[in-house]
């Protein structure tokens, strides 16, 4: 994998770990809501999902993912893309995460799942 892309993925995963589902107190990476971080002609595309199509938090998540991407200097162009396939299930929650940790999981403790895609 391209080192710079790997580094950008790492940064994106790190900032996305700061996007917390306010009702669960858990970040969207650990919840398994972020499916892919893709690169398309210099544009970063984050594919994510919500727990259900009727999720009232859908717009909130979209805004928070976009705000997180905006924070990264090396990402000039981005798209937060909501997708519904595959359908999210509890099995997608990252194993062994300290789910109900107090405070919520720390940002330096992120999974390598997204980064190594």
């Amino acid at each position: 994998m391209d080192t710079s892309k790997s580094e950008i993925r790492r940064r994106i995963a790190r900032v996305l770990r700061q996007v917390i589902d306010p009702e669960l107190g858990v970040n969207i990476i650990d919840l398994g809501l972020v499916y892919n971080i893709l690169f398309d002609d210099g544009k970063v595309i984050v594919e994510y999902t919500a727990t259900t199509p009727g999720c009232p938090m859908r717009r909130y998540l979209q805004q928070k993912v976009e705000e997180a991407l905006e924070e990264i200097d090396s990402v000039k162009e981005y798209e937060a893309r909501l997708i519904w396939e595959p359908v999210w299930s509890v099995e997608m929650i990252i194993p062994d995460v300290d789910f109900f940790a107090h405070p919520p999981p720390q940002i330096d403790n992120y999974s390598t799942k997204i980064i190594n895609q």
Partner: protein
Amino acid sequence: MNRKTSALVLVSLLVFAGLALLSGLFSGLVRLGWVIEGGSPVSPLIHGPLMINGFLGTLISLERSAALEKKWAYAAPVCMAIATVILLLGIIVIAQWLYLVGAILLLLILTYLYQLQKEMYHIIMAVGGACLVTGNFLYLYGLPIYNIIVWWMGFLLLIIFSERLELNRIMRPSQNVQYLFTGLVLFWLAGITLTYVDRYSGWAIASVALILQALWLFKYDIARRTIRSTAWTRYSAVCLLIGYGWLVLAGLFGLWKGLPAAGPMYDAILHMIFLGFVFSMIFAHAPVIIPSLSGKDIPYHNYFYLPLILLHSSLLIRIMGDLFWLPVIRKSGAHTNVLAILLFLGGIGFQLVRNSLKKSRQLKAAEKS
């Protein structure tokens, strides 16, 4: 529709829901005996329709439409919002028709959600929508509110229960445990339907179901875990658990007193459910729903425990007033209920404005540097 326009539309519709809430609260105060010189601008008879349809009907259909991001779905909250204005203008029958149409449109949204994801919680949600359609049809048909109220309760309870069932997948309840909850929902529906044949027995069945549903939620809801978290997450969990406590109390009260058609016991049981439970859920979800609809964050503050404590303690006082027929106590409890809701809304508004000002100051500072 682009996002910016959409946010404006959403906030406008949210304003209509807020209008219904404030006028509904005012109507409730008039019911309690507030005397306005020259007559009240809001009829005391429309307290229920304003709170259930005008406020919660608009709000719930708005959040579902916003979640779906389909233009046609916005017809539901728009219909509800127009109905509220017409109701406030005193044109009752047209408002009743529009509330019925709004409810049917909401049912369409909920059915569409089931089509997208064929899960039990979406069926329960759609049945909640069907309860609103039934209640609003009977309202148009001319049945008195005390004969409709069970359907309006069904609407809110089932929508909330379905959301909890969906979210509580995280607790990984077994299939049988999920079936048990669905069975309890059916049991509750059977109870409220039976109230039309035998009001006391029907409500007793519904009360037992209510207690069991609350116990299920106590055992399987993530709130028991997230209460150990911080800020809004902890606050939501506290609201949820208190709300479930009110369901148990409402169930026990219902077994003891039944569901009268009027009077203090009717007031007590209705407000245990609508204020104790439903408003707890509203307090729990406001920090998620408002940012989602408006695009503005609400920073957490411990202040929000003040309206929460005030709401529930004053509700207890109100119920004591109902139970022992002490009108002054009942009134003071009810007035404080309204104050608690206003303090909560005021806190939300204050935090929104404060946060916006803070952000614009930061922006200006960044531009200067």
